[in-house]
């Protein structure tokens, strides 16, 4: 998984994205704008983090952080 390293810590990209979705549901386009990350990277990382239960996806395809990831984020 590209969102956590071999020690189980969040990667820099993952932290940026999780911070961007820590308050409200955001679209990949908004996240890319906020973080300065390329849109393709935001989309692939969100897919990765969704499969790990780090983010939840709305019907409108916007994303918000899950508690599990919030805990990891607070530790990093």
């Amino acid at each position: 998984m590209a969102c956590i390293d071999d020690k189980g810590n969040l990667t820099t990209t993952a932290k940026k994205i999780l911070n961007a979705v820590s308050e409200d549901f955001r679209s990949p386009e908004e996240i890319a704008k906020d973080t300065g990350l390329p849109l393709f990277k935001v989309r692939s990382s969100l897919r990765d983090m969704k499969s790990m239960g780090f983010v939840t996806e709305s019907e409108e395809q916007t994303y918000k952080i899950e508690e599990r990831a919030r805990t990891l984020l607070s530790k990093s």
Partner: protein
Amino acid sequence: MSEFVNQEAKKQEEVVNTLPRIGSPAPQFEAETTHGTIRLEDYKGSWLILFSHPADFTPVCTTEFAAFQEIYPKLKEMNTELLGLSIDSVYSHIAWVRTIEEKLGVKIEFPIIADLNKEVASKYGMIMPEESKTEAVRAVFVIDDKQVVRAVIYYPMSAGRNMEEIVRLIQSLQTSDQHGIATPANWKPGDKVIVPPPGTQEAAEERVNDDNVECIDWFLCKKEVK
């Protein structure tokens, strides 16, 4: 049985030799890359240059990678991403980009597909069996923001690609889309563009009398675009 095997081998060869045509939807894929798992659909809304190289740690490819990185900032300004591919492992790619950074001082920022099973290379016809059955040739696919193949360039293994031409090609395609025009030979941004030729005698007559275009003849007229 042997007939069946022959047919299967023929089918496989056809798949290897097939390439997406200009104007066709770009074949979708999901692939392991140096930036994690990426799908083609992740690039929707951006233009993409999907390019293959024969192998990591080879001299021509190394110069090309440094050159691709050099044009990457300019491409990003044009809403265009880069995605490399070769039939090497992700570990080989990682080692190679680290070597490029160490030896050439160039940090490769775009992802590279590790296409060990040749799945993407086969979909895009990047393997030319007459050249090599195990390595991709130097293919470039320009895919637009709607995921349509807009241009295809093929170079043999011995010739490194020209980055200025790749940038110029994107500029030409995007200018054509924006203004509904075509671009002449050796066109560069700022040069006059070609107005589509008129389709009727009446339109041809009007065209040659149009003060807003510069005509050599009714079918070859140019104008400035901003």
